């Protein structure tokens, strides 16, 4: 529970004015209504009813998020193209990259699954990070947002459960145990890149505070609208 968010006590009138609405937030998970107040970096406003984190700002969040997202994208490129695992059994060698793991399903009936695995461990994580960079990079130094920034960030938020890099890593561990009896497996550079990617993604999600991003987008949208209105009234 945080002192920086106050439960809304009086129900508002049927037609409340927009300025009053702007200071209200409803918990997305349980609909509890709150009056927002400034929350300091590293403090958190938590829904008193269901425990969901509503606001959790961090200092210099945008630049840190962008740095972590770009790092994750670079690690992902390394993880895709470099050899991932090297398998040797009775004098024979086999190497697989993440790309090979994706293409393993590419013959016949298995094509759809190949597409799904590629989407879950490569395309969706990369798309999500790119959308976040697209949204935040122009706003980092106080500049205007790029067109459709709100849509981009909303899509990034919706994609989060479908980015499964960390689950893939557990799958790798299980696969290693399964082949341990018949072959020796050596992790390649891509394996370590992938481990780094998972760690960086966890740090990234920890610094990310959606409410701060939405407020930044809304401020710019409001400014853009009033500038457009001013221009229209002059004409």
């Amino acid at each position, binding site marked *: 529970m945080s002192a920086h968010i106050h439960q809304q006590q009086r129900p508002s009138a049927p037609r409340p004015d927009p300025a009053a609405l702007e200071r209200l937030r409803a918990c997305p998970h349980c*609909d509890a209504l709150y009056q927002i107040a400034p929350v300091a970096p590293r403090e958190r406003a938590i829904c008193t009813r269901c425990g969901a984190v509503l606001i959790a700002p961090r200092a210099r969040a945008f630049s840190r998020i962008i740095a972590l997202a770009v790092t994750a994208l670079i690690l992902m490129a390394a993880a895709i193209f470099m050899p991932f695992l090297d398998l040797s059994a009775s004098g*024979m060698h*086999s190497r697989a990259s993440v790309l090979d793991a994706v*293409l393993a*399903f590419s013959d016949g009936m298995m094509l759809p699954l190949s597409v799904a695995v590629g989407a879950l461990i490569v395309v969706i994580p990369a798309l999500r990070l790119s959308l976040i960079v697209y949204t935040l990079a122009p706003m980092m130094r106080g500049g205007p947002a790029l067109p459709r920034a709100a849509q981009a960030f909303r899509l990034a938020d919706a994609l989060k459960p479908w980015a*499964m890099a960390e*689950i893939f890593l557990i799958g*790798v561990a299980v696969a290693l145990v399964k082949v341990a009896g018949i072959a020796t497996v050596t992790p390649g550079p891509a394996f370590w890149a992938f481990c780094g990617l998972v760690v960086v993604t966890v740090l990234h999600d920890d610094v990310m505070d*959606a409410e701060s991003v*939405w407020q930044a987008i809304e401020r710019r949208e409001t400014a853009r609208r009033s500038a457009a209105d001013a221009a229209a009234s002059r004409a």
Partner: protein
Amino acid sequence: MTPAAVPTARTAGLIGCTRCGRVFAPGTELCTRCGAPLSSRDPRALQRVWAWWFAGLVVYIPANIYPMLITRTLTYSGEGTILGGVVELLGHGDYFVAFVIFFASILIPVGKFMAIAFLALSIRNHRFLDEHAQHRLHAVVEFIGRWSMIDVFVVAILASLVRFDAVATINPGIAAISFALSVAFTMLSAQSFDPRAIWDE
């Protein structure tokens, strides 16, 4: 504090955005901040929950009957189902990994089908679980459901790694597709559920 004592966007006659939390006057259709469609409570949410639930169940049946892995070596040729894979790991003494696969591929999917059905049936009935417990159950289902995908990745890695043409090959079986679909459909089912309705009087 009884749930009724907590003011909500709905009791205040307003609509909260489930994507970004911004609050709007009734009749607003799209969130002006994030662009998400607004609804105080979506009357068709439960229909979508059940539709994805049944779709997930239908593809979960072949996922358990047909092979996940088709292994061919010089001396051995066999097909392994999900349960067969767990039994095989137990036979090798890999108890921990056997438990991980049993948990991710059998316990989580079955538990998820039961939990979503229970929530959808008892959304207004708090006789067995109170609002807090129901809300927590939904949060756990949403958090843990995606981890079932482990076995699909295991199959992908094994199939790409074990390719010693004449000596040993592992190929994915049809169950890998239906299991992946089942995980995706039940994730969509859990996402369609509107947990705000748990707290309504």
